[in-house]
Structures are given as C-alpha cells and as structure tokens.
C-alpha cells in the first residue's frame, strides 16, 4: 500500500518525526493520543513495528520509508506543512542536518533535535533549533539522585 502523502485530519495539529526508534515511537504514541496527525520517517521499514499497534489504521499516523537528510524525502512526508519537526534518529549529524532543512528550507515553526554531544547545543540554538541531549539529562538526573 502506498503511503498517504496528505494529512488526513485537516483540523488536527501536525508533526513529522524523523527516526522511529524507542524515542520516536513513544513520542508518536503520546501525540497521537492527544489528537495530533503524524508522519513518521525512517530509513528502515522494520522500525515502524515499534509504533503502537492500530495507530496507523485510521491514517492518523503515516509511516514513510525515507531519508530525513534529503529535502525531497522530507517534502514527501509533508514536513513543509507541519507545525513541529522532531529529529530523533540515533545519529547526531543526521538529526542536525534534517533539523536544519526543516527549519531553514521548509520553514517549520518548531524544530526539535536530539543530540548526544551537549557541546554542540549552543550552536544549534543559534540556528533556531531546540536541542535535547539525553547525555546531559541523564547526567543531571544521576547527579541529582547522588546528591539528595
């Protein structure tokens, strides 16, 4: 079956998530429950099996096999019409490239990018991209727990 390329629920909030691993699929599950329309993009067709069963049946969540570092594939995922773009693949550089295309070429309002290396956070924020670093979050939590 060909993926539906247009948003099926015109009134709902729209997000595109690049990377359908543990983090991407968890975010998708929660946003879909909140009524968002989602397009998921991942290079690996098998990755979509992590999405909660049944979520794709009504077209609210659409899975697209593609490369999020290519503008053409991001357009196929309707990123240009999304309010939010989230890059949460396992590779920092891929996330950062995809995020910059979403922000500066496709003009997505809110772009969130996962980076492991917290040292690059400041630079991406200069580029208008919100970064989330699991390394920094986990470090903070462990330090907090250790000090309490």
């Amino acid at each position, binding site marked *: 079956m060909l993926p539906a390329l247009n948003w099926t629920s015109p009134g709902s909030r729209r997000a595109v998530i690049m990377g359908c691993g543990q983090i991407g699929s968890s975010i998708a599950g929660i946003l879909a429950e909140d009524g968002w329309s989602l397009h998921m993009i991942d290079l690996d067709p098998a990755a979509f099996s992590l999405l909660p069963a049944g979520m794709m049946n009504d077209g609210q969540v659409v899975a697209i096999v593609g490369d999020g570092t290519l503008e053409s594939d991001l357009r196929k995922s309707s990123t240009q019409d999304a309010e939010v773009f989230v890059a949460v693949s396992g590779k920092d*550089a891929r996330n950062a*490239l995809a995020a910059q295309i979403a922000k500066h070429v496709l003009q997505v309002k809110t772009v969130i990018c996962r980076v492991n*290396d917290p*040292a*690059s956070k400041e*630079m991406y924020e200069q580029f208008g991209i919100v970064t989330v670093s699991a390394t920094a979050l986990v470090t903070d939590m462990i330090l907090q727990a250790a000090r309490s």
Partner: protein
Amino acid sequence: MYVVILGAGKVGFALARWLVTSDHEVAVIDWDPSRCAALEDELGGISVVGDGTDAGVLARAGCNRADVFVGAGGVDEDNLIACQLARHRFGALKTISLVNIPEHEALFALLGIDVTVNATDMIVGRLKEELSGAAILDLEEMR
C-alpha cells in the same frame, strides 16, 4: 596557513599531501585508525583518530587556530556538522565541504558553508563531455 581536514580517504589524503609539500600546516581527522596510520607513514604525525562531528575531537585537532576547515569525508551530514562546528564554535575563517549527494549542494551554501565541491556532478559532467560529440560517433561506428 593551518588547515584541518575531515576524512583521510582518497581526497583528504591527497589534499594533505599537497598542503604538506606546499609548506602548510595540516591536521587530518578520521575515525578509522588504519587510515590515520597510513597517512602518518607517509606524512608524519598529523592525524587525529576520532569522530569529526564531536567538538572534543575538533578541539584536539587544533580547530581553534584553523584558517581553513575542509570537510572531505564521504558522508555529507558529517562534513556539514564538522564545518559548522569549526566555524561557529572554533572560529575557522573559511569552510569548504565535499558534497556527495548533489541535492545537498545548494543546501550547504544556504547553511553557511563558504565553498561546496560537488564531486558527483563534476565527475558526471566530465563523463558527459567525453561521451558527447566525437566520442559518441566513434561508438556508433563500432556497432
């Protein structure tokens, strides 16, 4: 001039060799220790083993005093991020990047890379030249 190069593959190696013989100072970053070893066998201790998109590795390569940073790796996103870090975090004066996927050429310029070198289009362009005109006629005659 101090030049930091990402990638000790064919392009990075040849560029480093030319810079060394032209009396410039060079550092080459590559994640593959065997490629760095091959480079050092010929050109001396100018390599840094590591991920060139990691700010710590760029710091070890002396990016804070680089005049030029060259992304010569085979993976476009790594070239882009390394160039951007070299410029914005370390203050490199000029960034040059190889572009392996032609679709990325205009994008890299938009994202602030000073010079892009689109290897695929250059090679295809050259092949088209060879295959046009007389060359095609020769092939036709051979059929």
